[in-house]
């Protein structure tokens, strides 16, 4: 049984715009999934279905094999934590630490556990020194970090992040990559995220969904997706720079293994150049 599954999920906005059209999406346990697609492809709309914020016009959303109903919606939201795209709207408490404490408190945890989780979550996103700040004194990227901490502190089984790196500084992005990978490895957390930064995809994800026009146009692992140039350009996306570079080296007749992450690329290059020279 999959943690999250959608079956022929279609969503039509009240105004008549079709946000999603027959989406079949599967998130197995402990997966790290990237959802990529141009602006307006339907990523945010899809993510809002994962915790029952939006209700399908037709089709189904299954969490642990169960459709989301009024009766289990609290359980669903406990399991599936979604960080929305706009961080501004997600912070509503007077201080940063109170905001991060909101979720755990509402899960009914005792004060000590809440405190512990808040400290831990703030440390992960690098905001521990700004815990007592008021939200209107935060920068855009800092708000984003707080919003992420607010969900992490609930320790959901599935962490859904809508454009988590938008607005983060480079250090913030690599911190994010670090703690997402460690959450996935140590707690077995399932991670689903969307991004326009294709270079980020191989660093976190192992599986990719490509969306366009409210549909899933392709899915597969790195090599499946990044092998097909036409596919990516047809949905207004581009190859990440490492596979792109290796491709152009191939065109120059240089023999080198394909790689997607920086680490793999490093060893591929070393093999290629040390081996030949």
């Amino acid at each position, binding site marked *: 049984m999959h943690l999250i599954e959608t079956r022929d999920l279609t969503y039509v906005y009240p105004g008549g715009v079709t946000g999603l059209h027959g989406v079949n999406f599967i998130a197995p346990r402990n997966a790290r999934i990237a959802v990529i697609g141009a602006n307006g492809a339907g990523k945010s709309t899809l993510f809002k279905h994962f915790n029952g914020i939006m209700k399908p016009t037709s089709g189904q959303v299954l969490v642990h094999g169960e459709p989301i109903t009024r009766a289990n919606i609290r359980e669903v939201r406990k399991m599936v*934590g979604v960080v*929305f795209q706009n961080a501004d709207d997600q*912070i*509503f408490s*007077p201080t940063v630490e109170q905001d991060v*404490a909101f979720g755990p408190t509402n899960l009914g945890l005792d004060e000590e556990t809440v405190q512990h989780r808040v400290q831990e979550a703030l440390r992960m996103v690098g905001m521990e020194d700004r815990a007592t700040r008021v939200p209107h004194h935060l920068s855009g990227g800092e708000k984003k970090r707080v919003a992420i901490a607010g969900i992490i502190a609930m320790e959901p089984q599935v962490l859904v992040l809508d454009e988590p790196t938008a607005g983060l500084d480079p250090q913030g992005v690599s911190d994010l990559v670090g703690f997402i990978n460690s959450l996935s490895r140590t707690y077995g957390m399932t991670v689903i995220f969307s991004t326009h930064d294709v270079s980020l995809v191989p660093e976190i994800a192992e599986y990719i969904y490509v969306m366009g026009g409210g549909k899933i146009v392709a899915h597969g692992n790195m090599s499946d997706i990044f092998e097909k140039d036409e596919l990516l350009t047809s949905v207004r996306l581009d190859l990440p720079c490492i596979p792109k570079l290796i491709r152009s080296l191939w065109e120059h007749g240089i023999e080198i293994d394909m790689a997607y992450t920086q680490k793999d690329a490093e060893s591929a290059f070393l093999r290629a150049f040390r081996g030949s020279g």
Partner: protein
Amino acid sequence: MIDEHLLDDLALQNGLLEVDARLKLAVGIGAILIGVFSPSPIAPLAIAASMAVLTIGFARIPARIYAALLAIPVSFVFMSIIVILFMTGGGEPLWDIPILGHTFSLTTDSANLAVLLLSRTLGGMCSLFFIALTTPMVDIFSVMNRLRLPDEFIDLSMLIYRNIFVLIGESIAIHNAQVMRNGYSTFRRSIDAFAMLAGMLFVRAWEKGEEMLVAMDARCYDGKFQMIEEERRISATGIATATGYLCACAGLAVIFRSFSLF
């Protein structure tokens, strides 16, 4: 200089931030009560002076901002004083002013009442500004929580507090966007632009409210906010100083209870 979150911003960086909020509230509220009940102007004036010293000297609130803030209630009180001086009577006449065939007389009682009113207003406002400028809202929430006020009341206050800044932020953002595109260049345009701003602000407030609800639901909201507070004990010196101060004020009020200027 005076921008959108002035009072709260100042309070968040004031020199007395570390002093326990309960003490500051007790001193402020106590001083207001003593000032209001004092029959003579001496105690309220002493309170006004000492509060100003506390706020400017110890909390390090810039004197210019403090004066600008105080100017608002003071200008109101001067307007009322003029009315009181001529409309109330009793006691010896001090000064007769003939206007249009009528004689308006200023008597000792009316002068005393005017002085008392001025001093009480000053004392009260200085104490209120002391609270407002040294105690951020966030601290007041935790005091409310300690006082066991209803959770609904506190949660609502916290949401309102946050949303005030959201709304101010939105209106500034819309206003800036309009100014950048010449929205206020002529009188006609500024009327149009302002109408649009007001309309947009209403719509945005509505949307923000809904989005906030969604965000709260997504984090399993079931009617609980966490109050973060370290269990702090008020220091003995703090209690002693506050009590001493309030006693001194009360003492002044009692000793000079029958003092009057005229």
